[in-house]
């Protein structure tokens, strides 16, 4: 009897720990505006909440956890084929586009897809030495490849956000997006804490 009771206690503890772990991932968004009057916004959402709520939303572009994307946006590039090629390749910088007003880099590193976009003031760029120019804004995106695959697992003209969130919940601490420009900084990340720092 006593042994059965202990077995039950252990089973209950393991189940609860499992549930807690599943509910443990939080997605955080932090926006800090520059200046004295700048706002500071912090949002903390449990991934499990997003996972449960997304399928219930039946809006115009967001339905069943999938976002409809303008077909023309995805028509130009076969994203799936591109990612497939990059996924099986070695870590490297695969795309670099430099123009008078921006630098775009796409790389693969340690199972993550890295995208960096830097926006410049063209006048400033012409007069400054390489590497010295000031950027207007910098966007860094770091997404695990399985999450990207899940995101693109739907139809050609849709992004499967729900599938991406499910895969994302398997990861520990990940900085997904950082954006910084003259007026504000934005950070989106996932971790196991329920408060943003």
């Amino acid at each position, binding site marked *: 009897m006593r042994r059965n009771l202990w077995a039950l206690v252990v089973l209950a503890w393991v189940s609860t720990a499992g*549930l807690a772990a599943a*509910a443990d991932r939080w997605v955080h968004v932090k926006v800090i505006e520059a200046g*004295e*009057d*700048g*706002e*500071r*916004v*912090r*949002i*903390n*959402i*449990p991934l*499990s*909440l997003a996972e*449960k*709520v997304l*399928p*219930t*939303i*039946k809006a115009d572009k967001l339905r069943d956890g999938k976002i409809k994307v303008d077909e023309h946006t995805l028509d130009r590039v076969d994203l799936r084929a591109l990612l497939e090629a990059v996924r099986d390749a070695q870590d490297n910088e695969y795309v670099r586009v430099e123009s008078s007003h921006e630098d775009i880099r796409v790389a693969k590193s340690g199972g993550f897809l890295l995208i960096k976009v830097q926006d410049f003031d063209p006048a400033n760029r012409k007069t400054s030495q390489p590497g010295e120019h000031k950027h207007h804004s910098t966007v860094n995106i770091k997404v695990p490849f399985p999450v990207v695959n899940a995101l693109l697992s739907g139809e050609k003209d849709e992004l499967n956000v729900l599938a991406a969130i499910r895969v994302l919940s398997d990861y520990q601490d990940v900085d997904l997006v950082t954006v910084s420009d003259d007026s504000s900084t934005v950070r989106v990340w996932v971790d196991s804490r*329920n*408060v*943003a720092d």
Partner: protein
Amino acid sequence: MTPNVAILGASVTLVTMTGAFVCSMGMVQVKVQSKSPGGEHIRVIAPAMVLPVGAMLVPKEKVREVSRQLQPWLPTIRAATEELLRCPDGPLVQVDNRHEHVKIAKVGNALVIDVDDQTETVHVSVPLRAAAYACSRLAGGAQAEHEATPGQPI
């Protein structure tokens, strides 16, 4: 036992049971403290059960409008409520600037909203189930009645 004692006992039981039922969804708290000298201080604590009752006092035309807007979002509200109840307590949204601080947090089974600006501080605490139930009632219909009854999981 005399008839008077029996009636008294039944009355006390009835009042206790009614009180327990009315409070079963928790309490709604609203506190407003003006910062101006001699400003008002409002404090309301009421059973969450009164939320749908309050909705009944809203003009029918307004209720119809709100109902139409709420109806498609009921599954979302229900899912969010259920999941929030399972989540650990913590701040969900915080907005701060020089003049105003807004915080929406989950505390226990309630959603707590705190606003602190230059003129007043506002504190609102609404039990999650009660808020979802009030939305269901507002959205109206027998279906809502069936799916979310007081004290039952939504």
